[in-house]
């Protein structure tokens, strides 16, 4: 590609106009200026083109050279991604630190996958085998948790003319495919253009829940494996904490976390915790199944734009191996703002709040890359990418372009509520404003694996909370004392639900992850309590009498009891017995 050289005609922040280079293509990577800053072609005109540069352009001058690479912006895919940290254009941040110190300077070039590390490759097909794109030809133990499947890259097929077991670097050949007299060397790594979704055979319905261990999500607003959910909320309402918890405790096989225009200390926190936190399912530290992409708010804006695609491409790659991957993007609003800033510098017409007209398309394209699929190739396998995106609406007001368009393309929304956060009710997910279209599809999983009557309890609890909010509105005008007893009971039980079920603040210990069965038992306890107490009230027991039942306070905190399910079952028995005694005292015989 030598000789494809032009020069800079204009610099305005990350946007650089280049002349003297005719045959570039959209999305092509270029090296800009004496320092060879990495950029990408974003607009082509007859006698110039415009590149967005992924690094700080201070000091760059007109007339400096620009070199076209002939390649699109790609992700390197192969063993060596897992448990590492990259910036928005897939430069490994630890290597950068070793190379140039504690601050990220521009112009550094380090390849994403280490070139000198040898991996032990074990073939799973033999010489003479006929293979095509997506076929697994061998395996590498990438981390103790993740077996990396080496696949025939898209677009390749033929007969294996040789394949060998042994220790190889990612760019040494491990096999050769022959087709029609042409030979193609298979390596453990290949490249994929990040803006193009990777191919698969077919989409499958998403019926399994991603079990997160947060009651308000799993029980009321679940997300399916292969689904997409958004978590919008003003600052400090709990987007990052919720997403971190999902990264740490959910039953994902692989987590890819994109810190997109957010805080450096939040990345530091993850990098501190992930190597220490042991996943009880595998007994291994979760870093062994995680990849972090960190393009913090003070790192270049255009690389922030790229980070989203980088992350989702890696997610699709592991999906293609047959894994269930959770992709987390915190925050997609910062990505949209990066789009806006670049569009502004390109002089594109803004439509809503300065965002370009193609914002909805970009958001849709991103969330479309979620899904549960049957992969290409053999052996037959299924994989999924679940996308969870934080949205940071200005002023916490959801009526703004990024939130509005995101909600069109996701199946679940966890609406964070500033009022709840102010009261330190976390997760501050508003149970009246949130939704999940997956609730019905994953219900079967609950009835099969947890309990037949789970759906019924779920619906009743939601209804009770809805009614309670209406009563609360009245109470805030007339005072609780002026309400009839049955309404006060509803308020009492909704209080128990909020404190004892919805609220889940633990950062460690029993309540950090609530297993589905316990979620069900807690819900059942509270709703059965309501039913019994309601009957007592209709038979003239005063609500004050019921409020005095000391087990009520226990119901609010049993979720944290280290004895887990046993504690809930025990409390259930005691509470019901207490109500029965009350009934006896008043000479009541239950109807049901």
């Amino acid at each position, binding site marked *: 590609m030598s000789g494809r050289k032009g020069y800079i005609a204009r610099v305005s922040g990350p946007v650089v106009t280049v002349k003297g280079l005719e045959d570039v293509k959209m999305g092509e990577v270029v090296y800009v200026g004496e320092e060879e800053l990495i950029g990408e072609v974003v607009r082509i005109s007859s006698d110039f083109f415009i590149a967005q540069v992924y690094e700080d352009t201070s000091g760059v001058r007109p007339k400096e050279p620009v070199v076209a690479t002939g390649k699109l912006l790609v992700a390197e895919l192969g063993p060596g991604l897992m448990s590492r940290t990259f910036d928005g254009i897939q430069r490994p941040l630890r290597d950068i630190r070793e190379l140039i110190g504690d601050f990220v300077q521009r112009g550094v070039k380090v390849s994403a996958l280490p070139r000198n590390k040898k991996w032990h490759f074990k073939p799973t097909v033999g010489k003479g085998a006929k293979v095509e794109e997506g076929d697994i030809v061998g395996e590498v133990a990438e981390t103790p948790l993740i077996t990396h499947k080496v696949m025939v890259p898209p677009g390749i097929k033929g007969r294996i003319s040789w394949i060998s077991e042994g220790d190889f670097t990612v760019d040494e050949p491990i096999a050769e495919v022959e087709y029609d007299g042409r030979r193609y060397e298979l390596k453990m790594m290949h490249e994929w253009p990040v803006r193009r979704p990777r191919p698969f055979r077919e989409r499958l319905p998403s019926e399994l829940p991603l079990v997160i261990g947060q009651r308000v999500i799993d029980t009321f607003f679940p997300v399916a494996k292969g689904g997409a959910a958004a978590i919008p909320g003003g600052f400090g309402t709990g987007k990052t904490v919720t997403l971190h918890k999902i990264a740490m405790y959910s039953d994902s096989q692989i987590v890819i976390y994109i810190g997109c225009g957010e805080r*450096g200390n939040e990345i530091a*926190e993850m990098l501190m915790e992930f190597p220490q936190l042991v996943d009880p399912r595998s007994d291994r530290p979760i870093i062994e199944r995680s990849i972090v992409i960190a393009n913090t*708010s003070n790192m270049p804006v255009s690389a922030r734009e790229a980070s989203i695609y980088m992350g989702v491409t890696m997610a699709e790659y592991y999906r293609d191996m047959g894994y269930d991957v959770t992709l987390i993007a915190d925050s997609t609003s910062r990505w949209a703002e990066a789009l806006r800033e670049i569009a502004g510098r390109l002089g594109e017409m803004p439509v809503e709040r300065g965002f370009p007209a193609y914002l909805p398309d970009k958001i849709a394209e991103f969330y479309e890359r979620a899904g549960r699929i049957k992969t290409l190739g053999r052996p037959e396998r299924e994989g999924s990418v679940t996308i969870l995106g934080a949205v940071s609406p200005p002023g916490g007001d959801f009526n703004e372009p990024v939130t509005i368009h995101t909600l069109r393309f996701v199946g679940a929304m966890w609406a964070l509520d500033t009022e709840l956060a102010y009261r330190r009710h976390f997760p501050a997910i508003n149970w009246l404003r949130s939704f999940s279209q997956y609730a019905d599809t994953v219900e079967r999983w609950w009835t099969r694996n947890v309990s037949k009557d789970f759906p019924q309890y779920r619906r009743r609890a939601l209804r009770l909370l809805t009614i309670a909010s209406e009563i609360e509105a009245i109470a805030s005008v007339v005072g609780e004392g002026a309400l009839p007893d049955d309404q006060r009971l509803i308020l009492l039980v909704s209080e128990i639900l909020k404190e004892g079920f919805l609220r889940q603040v633990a950062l460690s210990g029993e309540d950090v992850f609530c297993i589905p069965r316990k979620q069900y038992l807690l819900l059942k306890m509270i709703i059965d309590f309501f039913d019994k107490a309601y009957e007592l009230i209709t038979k003239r027991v005063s609500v004050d009498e019921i409020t005095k039942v000391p087990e009520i306070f226990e119901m*609010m905190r049993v979720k944290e009891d280290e004895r887990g399910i046993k504690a809930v079952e025990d409390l259930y028995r005691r509470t019901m017995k207490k109500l029965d005694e009350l009934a006896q005292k008043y000479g009541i015989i239950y109807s049901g």
Partner: protein
Amino acid sequence: MGSDVWYFDSEILTRYPGKIYRQVKELRGNLLVIDGVEDSAYDEVVYIYSRDGRERAGRVLETKIGEAIVQVLGEREGLETDILVKFTGSTFKIPVSEDIVGRIFNGRFEPIDGLPPVVSGDWREITGAPINPVAREYPHDFIQTGISVIDGMFSLVRGQKLPIFSVSGLPHNIVAAQLARQATVRGEGEEFAVVFAGVGLRSTEANFFIEQFRETGAIERMVAILNLADDPAVERLMTPRIAMTVAEYLAFDLEMHVLVIMSDMTNYCEALREISTARGEIPGRLGYPGYMYSDLASIYERAGIIKGKRGSITLFPILTMPGGDLRHPIPDLTGYITEGQIFLSQELHTRGIYPPVNVLPSLSRLMKAGIGRGKTREDHRYVADQLYDAYSRGVKARDLARIIGEVGLSERMRRFLKFADEFEKVFVNQNPEENRPIEETLDRAWQALATLPEEELVRIPREMIEKYHPKYRG
């Protein structure tokens, strides 16, 4: 070129090396469009010499072959198209050395304390470079400020960035000064060095800070960068960056623990809006540029700790919320960047409570790493949680009482109302001179909580109640 310099002595013109141009095509607000410039660098610093004999600095905002757009720093009055512009060939840098400690500078880093300029061969770009996220140490050392409501409920840790959201007329400067005066990490004798960035401050406000530091002797460990209300507004864009560059030098070269105070960052944002408007950029909310988030982050994210280095940067930006509105873009974007916020309230101030911290919208996100057994006290987290919960109920009861009268409240709500009063009185309220150790802070919290029946304390584990509740402590 000699003939061009008819209104300058050659001494000034040779102060900085570089090429000189005089074809100014257009003057628009603080922007100069200069013709014939072949290859100025993006972000390059220029010096501008006008007939009035003044020298101004500027920087290149956009460069193309044959033209540069320059933002003028400094007074624009007196500018005309017949001026000389000198391109220095480099971006904006300041000299650093140990001699900057104890000094006072203006928004161009020129000394204004009557002492000679800093001489050093070590020049640093004021824009700085991002800390590599993998090089960051997660902040965890509790800073005791001696202010109960902060230490107890919004504990601050070394390396955190925590703004104070206020409105004009509230004592935010007094709170900030008290913080700077009292902040210590317990068990360490070492005191904080202070970098103070005055951004568009009135001189009385700036003097208030300097005096405070002088009185306590802190001035020996202080560097002040002052851009006063009557200084050029565009220099406000440099002031915080100079302060962070100084802070980075003190923290990561001289290994000091640094507290940076910036007041008032609202003035910074106004200056940013002004420049953006002059450039004709597409405005975001309320005319502030769409990149204000990233721009503020490029300042605030420079706070922190680096693995393997002894020093740290803890940052307190102070800002006044236009119209007292938390949703205004300035506090809103700040809150999205910083690690919490301390929110001052007019209402508490009117009721005579100092510090008038509105507890409910305030937050410290890094609190959890700095508190608990071995750091503050084992009951800290639970007590803070319980205070929050009880106070929010108390405030709700107070609001309701305004509508239906206190008698209309349920007995339970009346108790929370009483708690809220007690909490504000014994816990929040204190003297600006009063420095309370964390144990006293927590004991006062228990004193307030003791007004509630024990079973209401659902957020505190039983064994903590038995250990710390006044009832059991005799």
